[in-house]
């Protein structure tokens, strides 16, 4: 093993990547995934529930109320975001159709302590996003009313749930769990996935373009060629993951323990890259290797995620700074896995190199 040879091969691959520039698409893709997933979370939540953002708007929605007088009248009237009008059902529905009201509520005259439930009818516009917003707001009022009715009927209940009182007026911490529990592991692991798929292309290309014999006839051994390619892919990972952590920090998201996280991600990606290299060495053909590897990857990810205390969970906990996780132990286990995969890959590559040189 000559480290200079490995470096030469790695440099050759970097030059190739740089020449084609399409790796930018991979970076762009990660950016896209990040923005898209936060769009889904932040965008949808704030669209349906504007008050989840601090700049809550003061809009009043017109609500037509019809039927019996109940405590619902009072709760609706207390809300600053509703303007309640008492009107008859037919007029209310006609106004709703002309979009002069946001909703019409009909309350039946069922007594609160009746055996039957109180069945309130809520009319709102079909296929309209504002309708969803109004329903989210009405839900709070209806929950209050439900609590009143339940109180009246409480004698008929056999068990009561344990009471826990929550502090009121708490500023809600909207997206902490999404950011740390999903976005951070997704972002730091995406470079690893891309790198492991890249090595298949780099290896099978030598086979399918028949450049392997030329390469092996130089002083560089086949094992060195493989390690050079592994190195090129592996180096891309901490750079990209590190860039993600910096970008997150620039957005005010402080990820704790960045260095151990980068180490763990690099080791995990080394294991993935070696697994992928083995697949490529075995099949020597891109279609087969990519297909088998990506299916295997899905299986591996599914199984890993289902195990408590998996590396992804460790990264999440390390990122939040939650104590009580075994970071060194996990790094050790993943490192050992990468090491043994490296040994297998090395022996396999040596064996193939000998066969190529013998001309079989």
């Amino acid at each position, binding site marked *: 093993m000559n480290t200079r040879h490995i470096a030469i091969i790695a440099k050759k691959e970097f030059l190739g990547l740089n020449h084609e520039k399409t790796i930018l698409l991979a970076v762009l893709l990660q950016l896209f995934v990040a923005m898209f997933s936060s769009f889904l979370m932040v965008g*949808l939540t704030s669209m349906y529930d504007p008050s989840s953002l601090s700049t809550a708007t003061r809009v009043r929605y*017109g609500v037509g109320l019809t039927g019996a007088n109940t405590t619902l009248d009072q709760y609706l009237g207390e809300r600053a975001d509703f303007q309640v009008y008492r009107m008859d059902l037919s007029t209310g529905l006609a106004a709703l159709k002309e979009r002069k009201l946001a909703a019409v509520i009909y309350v039946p005259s069922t007594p609160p302590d009746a055996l039957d439930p109180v069945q309130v009818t809520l009319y709102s516009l079909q296929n309209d996003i504002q309708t969803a917003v109004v329903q989210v707001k009405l839900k709070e009022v209806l929950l209050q009313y439900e609590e009143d009715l339940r109180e009246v009927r409480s004698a008929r209940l056999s068990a009561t749930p344990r009471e826990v009182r929550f502090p009121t007026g*708490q500023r809600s911490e909207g997206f902490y769990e999404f950011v740390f529990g999903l976005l951070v592991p997704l972002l730091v692991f995406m470079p690893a996935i891309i790198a492991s798929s890249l090595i298949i292309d780099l290896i099978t290309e030598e086979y399918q373009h028949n450049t392997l014999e030329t390469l092996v006839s130089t002083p560089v051994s086949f094992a060195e060629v493989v390690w050079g390619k592994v190195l090129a892919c592996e180096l891309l990972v901490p750079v990209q993951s590190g860039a993600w952590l910096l970008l997150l920090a620039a957005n005010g998201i402080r990820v704790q323990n960045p260095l151990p996280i980068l180490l763990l991600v690099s080791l995990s990606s080394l294991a993935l890259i070696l697994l992928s290299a083995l697949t490529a060495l075995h099949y020597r053909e891109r279609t087969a290797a990519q*297909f088998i590897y990506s*299916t295997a990857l899905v299986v591996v990810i599914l199984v890993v995620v289902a195990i408590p205390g998996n590396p992804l969970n460790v990264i999440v906990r390390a990122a939040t700074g939650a104590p009580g996780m075994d970071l060194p132990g996990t790094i050790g286990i993943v490192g050992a896995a990468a090491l043994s995969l490296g040994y297998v890959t090395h022996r396999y590559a040596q064996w193939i190199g000998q066969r190529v040189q013998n001309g079989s």
Partner: protein
Amino acid sequence: MMGTLASVFTIARWEVKRSFTTLGRNVLPVAVVLFLLLMLATGFTAQSGMHLQDGIYSLGIDDPGLSAILGGDARFRVFSAEESTLQANRGAYDLVIIQGRVLRPLTDRGRAALKTLDRDYARYVSSVYNREEDLFAAYPLWIDLQAVKSEISFDATQSGQYLSLQQRSGEPPVPGGPVEAVATPAPQLPVPEDALREGLKREEGTPDQISRYTGLFSREPEYSTFRTPSQLSPPLPFDSIIFVFAFIFPLYFTSQFFMMSIMNERIERKGEVLLSGPVAPSVIIAGKMLPYLLGMVGVSTVVILAAGAPLAVLLPLVPVILFFLASALLIGMVSRSFKELSFISIFFSTVATSYLFFPSIFAQVHVISLISPLTLIVLQLQGEGFTAGQYLYSTALFYLTSGVLFYAGAVNFNAERLFSELAFFPRVRDFIAASLSRDHPFRSVFLMNTLLIPFIFMVQMMALVLFFNLPMPWSLLLLIGAAAFIEEFAKSIGVYTLFFEGDARPGGKTLVLASVATGAGFLFGEKLFLLVMLTQITDSVFGSILFLQQGILLLWMPLLLHITGVLVVSLVIRAGGTRWYLPGLMAATLIHGLYNLYFIMGWMR
């Protein structure tokens, strides 16, 4: 005709034979094993759950019995201690509950934990109530959701008016039209009590992955329009969306195989034999594609049958399959190396999947969700079905774009393009130039711009998604800028590839004519597209008439704008050479952006 068909089948047979010899021997057994493993792994994960956020919160309680309210939520590490110890070490826990009272959290993580605890508690409460003998004492209030169709909603917002549901005055609104007498609803629930209880229990049993993060959405209750107040959330067809992925994944893999098969023809000029035969390129493409097309339809049918879904789901999948195949064809023809193929295809499939997937989230909320064929699948799965009009609306874009892509692939499927060693962008330029007719330059520029419209709509949709995250003035400005840039770029492609090939310097008159053709083609495509879309989704003729009137009145302004944009780009290139393409494009974008900004500002005023 018969001869063509025969050649298609011959090539298809070759393709099947060859892919089986490359894949068959040692891939198929491994693939079968992996597939079985995948099933097992899915089952294992479904049973054990996702352990991604385990233990990120710590909770201190004075009463060990209280951990019941967590319902086994692994996100919490629970510590029970004496009240005084908890008080003293409050900072060591994210949340502390003392005597049934949650103390105010001190950190961001604590506030996030509070939200999670709140949801766990709500689930615990309903799990207690769901076991009540007297269901209507536990759930005394049921809400019957009735959707009312508004006659003016969609057309009004389209024509630029923003008809809001918000109320300003204190006076009760008076309907302008006639008031129809409506009978008051019957006070009794028409649904049996057992059905309601079943529904409540089913909801409790399923840990909801999405509601973990937002807590806003609920899955559709399966029993009619009746909800308890806590079920009153924006509907998110979560199950159907997950199910939709089961359709998309096989399509993605199969299109990868097709892509690779095209690429293989180009490696070491292997495809030369095929090209030298007496068959047209379109026949070769059709023949090579046929096995994959049939395979995709077959796999989808198997998935549908296995899931017991209606076969009508296949209909919206067909244009998606065609679109995947058409793009795979072009990607396989354009990429220079395997890594380029990977990058382009991963990028493409992610963007395409999110384009397909994203609107279907709004399946129950807004008609605009119909721009994705997947919405039709969601609707079909929920038992609502879709009309022919809706089908046309949501799939037209995909049929059109696939058609355009196939055409571009067919005219470029020759030795010169396939074995060219040029870099990515010059190659793409060659591809476009070959798709245009030099004998009828203006006609082909007009047609090209008309056909580009669906692509532009797709790209602009994605830009909307990307810039949404940014704070308000920036998101609007960037969106206007991006929309203008995308349109100007698209319009300049035709003129650039056709009139500035090599060192050609076309005359001023030619450029003006070409710009007029471009602007007219673009506007024609845009208006035609909008008209087709609008008439398909609005039932009333009223809407389309409204739109047309307004359209004809204001047609000359955008036409002038579109022509000016291309003209600016082409004049700049003519004066300074192709190096000045980008600055010219920027200038045109600026003009276009300012125009848009002026009108949006005017509209906002």
